[in-house]
């Protein structure tokens, strides 16, 4: 029926599920993604969901890539259109030669389809109505049934899916049987009535290895457990809420005293974000490792406290899962738009430490490291992830931990040190790194107590409004932030295959799309050195990288080029040198977008192939 040759592709395509939210589709879709991974083929799924509980459109986009590209590709080769509300746009989105799977219980006029795609109808509602009487079951198993049909259509081994269901519902035999039955109904129907397999196929491969599949928010929660956090205070906000849910669940598992069932942690759901960060600061001032998780609007609300923590020099860890803002603004869409509001958060001259994890593995490692850095530097540390890595399961390196590692609690003066006559000035730079010593309340009966306040004090924490004391303090803080440059995680360089005048700087969730874009560009003979920034204040290598190139693309997911602004200011860089590559429609950035923008920019400059110039 189609005029265009159907797409033929093994282990490299995009499937998109168009669903209604609250219909139970998410777990079925995830099951399918896991089944493909069990076949040894890397998958990167992304939930595109509304800020709503039930009834609005939601999509689950699944990139299948034997090459291991985990960024969003763009386009859709197979659409599973289960939502009549979005039918037209869903059908329109399919690539020419692509495939459409739909519920054919009610016949649709020919005009609602396209000529250049393969249409695969399955009477899912009718099949469910025959099989089940309960309305809820009819809905839930409809999803499982299409997973069964897809298993057949893509040539996936049914036994793999069956085993997966058994693993997922271990101990709940009734659920295993019911789910396998629904899978089997869909599978058999497709086998009997549709051309299985279609041009898109999943074939056994060895691309997954020992990788794990987890989302960044869960990894942050786990990182906080491993990082030694004992106090978490928070206020619910999308898309960060599950950081705390994960922390809570890992704490129940790992931090419950085996002898008496008591908690080696405290989690408080505060009345708002101001109270959340206040509790974090109080706990950290009192010697506990403490954190909060929030998103842009929460960051705005916490501003005054960030300033207090900065100047009173109290460690605090903030996980900011970035999204669009403010108010009801794009809470379920991803962005990297809080850099500026975190980097210089609060009134007065402040500068904060920021970490940029690229995936769940780094959410875990940088999440844990954030607590060491906060204690070492006695300042708030922000872990800036975003919805794309926070709320989507992602294949990543397995977590690891060195058991010989000890927490770096930083410069904490003990009762013994005070008794030994150590000079204690709470805001005195005795070591030349700008970092003073602190004492924890209750340390010593007569020595080491001090009164914490903002900046109206001298190096010994005594009240002072003297300009000289203020300047001493500000210069020491500036020095401390210089020290921070050496402590934040170093940038990661991905050099081009040959020397080039062009560079690209990126960070966070852009990473997989960037890696793929570099590969696409290399194929076109365009060579770009890439640097992934992992921390702020910028390590010297970041600024050196810019100086080493004629032009540097700064690739990020916000409208104003916030990392670029930070680079310009902090590195005193000529603005002409840093070229914006900005993606900010709320969807994750794609390799096609990045490669396209960079190629366009270079062709606009009439750049002859770089290898010729460099060769001379």
């Amino acid at each position, binding site marked *: 029926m189609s005029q265009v040759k159907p797409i033929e592709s093994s282990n490299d395509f995009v499937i998109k599920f168009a669903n209604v939210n609250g219909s139970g589709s998410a777990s079925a879709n995830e099951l399918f993604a896991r089944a493909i991974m069990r076949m040894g083929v890397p998958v990167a799924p992304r939930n595109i969901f509304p800020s709503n509980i039930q009834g609005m459109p939601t999509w689950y986009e699944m990139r299948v890539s034997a090459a291991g590209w985990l960024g969003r590709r763009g386009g859709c080769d197979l659409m599973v259109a289960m939502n009549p509300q979005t039918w037209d746009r869903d059908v329109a989105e399919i690539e020419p030669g692509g495939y459409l799977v739909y519920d054919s219980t009610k016949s649709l006029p020919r005009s609602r389809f396209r000529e250049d795609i393969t249409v695969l109808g399955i009477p899912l509602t009718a099949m469910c109505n025959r099989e089940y009487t309960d309305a809820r079951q009819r809905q839930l198993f409809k999803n499982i049934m299409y997973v069964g049909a897809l298993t057949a259509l893509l040539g996936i081994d049914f036994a793999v899916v069956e085993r997966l269901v058994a693993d997922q519902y271990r101990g709940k035999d009734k659920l295993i049987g019911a789910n396998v039955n629904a899978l089997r109904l869909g599978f058999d129907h497709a086998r009997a009535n549709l051309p299985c397999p279609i041009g898109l196929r999943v074939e056994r491969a060895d691309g997954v290895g*020992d990788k794990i599949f987890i989302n960044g928010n869960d990894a942050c929660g786990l990182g906080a457990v491993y990082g030694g956090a004992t106090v978490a205070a928070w206020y619910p906000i999308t898309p960060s809420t599950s950081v705390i849910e994960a922390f809570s669940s890992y704490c129940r598992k790992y931090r419950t005293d085996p002898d008496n069932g008591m908690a*080696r942690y405290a989690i408080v759901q505060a009345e708002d974000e101001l109270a959340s960060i206040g509790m974090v*600061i109080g706990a950290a001032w009192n*010697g506990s490792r403490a954190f909060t998780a929030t998103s842009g609007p929460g960051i705005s609300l916490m501003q005054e406290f960030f300033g*207090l923590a900065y100047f009173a020099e109290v460690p605090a860890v903030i996980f900011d899962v970035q999204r669009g803002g403010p108010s009801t603004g794009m809470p379920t869409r991803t962005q990297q738009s809080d850099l500026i509001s975190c980097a210089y958060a609060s009134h007065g001259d402040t500068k904060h430490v920021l970490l940029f994890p690229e995936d769940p593995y780094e959410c875990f490692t940088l999440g844990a490291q954030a607590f060491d850095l906060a204690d070492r530097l006695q300042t708030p540390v922000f872990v800036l992830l975003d919805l794309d890595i926070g709320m989507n399961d992602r294949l990543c390196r397995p977590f690891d931990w060195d058991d010989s590692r000890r927490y770096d609690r930083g410069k904490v003066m003990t009762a013994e040190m005070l008794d030994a006559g150590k000079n204690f000035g709470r805001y005195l730079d005795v070591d030349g790194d700008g970092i003073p010593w602190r004492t924890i309340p209750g340390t010593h009966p007569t020595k080491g107590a001090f009164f914490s306040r903002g900046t109206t004090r*001298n190096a010994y924490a005594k009240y002072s409004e003297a300009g000289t004391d203020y300047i001493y303090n500000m210069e020491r803080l500036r020095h401390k932030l210089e020290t921070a440059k050496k402590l934040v995680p170093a940038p990661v360089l991905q050099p081009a295959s040959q020397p080039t005048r062009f560079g690209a700087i990126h960070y966070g969730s852009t990473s997989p799309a960037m890696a793929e874009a570099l590969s696409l560009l290399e194929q076109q003979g365009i060579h770009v050195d890439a640097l992934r920034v992992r921390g702020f204040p910028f390590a010297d290598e970041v600024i050196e990288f810019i100086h080493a190139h004629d032009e540097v693309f700064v690739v990020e997911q916000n409208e104003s080029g916030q990392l670029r602004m930070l680079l310009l200011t902090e590195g005193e860089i000529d603005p002409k040198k840093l070229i914006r590559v900005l993606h900010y429609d709320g969807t994750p950035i794609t390799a096609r977008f990045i490669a396209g923008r960079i190629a366009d920019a270079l062709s606009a400059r009439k750049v002859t192939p770089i290898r010729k110039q460099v060769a001379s």
Partner: protein
Amino acid sequence: MTYLAKPKLLRSDAPRNAVGYTRRDYEGAISTLCAGCGHDSISAAVVQACFDLDIEPHRVAKLSGIGCSSKTPDYFLGASHGFNTTHGRMPSVLTGAALANRDLIYLGVSGDGDSASIGIAQFAHAMRRGVNMTYICENNGVYGLTKGQFSATADKGSKSKRGVVNSDTPIDLVALALQLGASYVARSFSGDKEQLIPLIKGALRHRGPAFIDVLSPCVTFNNHAGSTKSYDYVREHNDAVNRLDFILPRDKIETSYPPGSLRRIVQHDGSILHLRKLDADYDPSDRVGALLYLQERQALGEIVTGLLYVDSGAEDLHRHLNTVEKPLNQLGDAYLCPGSKALEALNASLR
């Protein structure tokens, strides 16, 4: 000014308490508040209460918000750690501190602007959460540091120094605290140390949120005719529900009062509160009754002082969260980090 150290002239024969400290050891820097400020009397009452209770100063953490009242923690307990936080946010910082170390005594000092205006949410939620603390609101109905604006506790119809009449309904923090679940609720007057010191002592030994609203006239901006928070006004309208004697467990039970006029309350730690009743009908264990009494008297233009409510069996936030007995800030790496083996098992479950 407070950056001038207080002279350390200590008489060798100064009386020492059971933990070996003199009263001077509980003092702080010299106050910078206006001469005659009610807040300084409250600071003195805190010093006396801690001395009498044999509390080691470094076992107290004192926290405050912003305002004249919130400056005072610098003026007592100089050997305690203190934290002058942000305006209206002391309760959250104190809550966090209390979570980190359940063994210290937490003293929060705030004012009426700090607690009833900008910080009313945090005030309310710290009370309902059951934070183990003594929360003193030094209430003068006026913003002193910014020179005389009304606060949310200013009575309707009261006059500012500039002659402006307040038309807003006042917030009664005592009534709020009662409603929100504070388990020790009292009101006193900065000029009445006989009443105030035992109330502070009882609060310090109470487990759970203890709130004391202390009317503390502002000598500069709110001590004029027409003010309902002036010394004269408060003295004239004060209705004390009881007189409190605070007794440590080691002391013998007081017997100097006639039976029937005494009510004995044993707190969780064995300390004893003796309420010497002035009003025969007053029952401090009845939260609803306390609210009713408060409002009846308020309608008559009276300010009720004394211990309005105490629940000696109250549970605090740590009990609700079931946290371990050892302070969280003292748990070592081995108690906190699950280690590589657990991580390997977790990795396996994520494939």
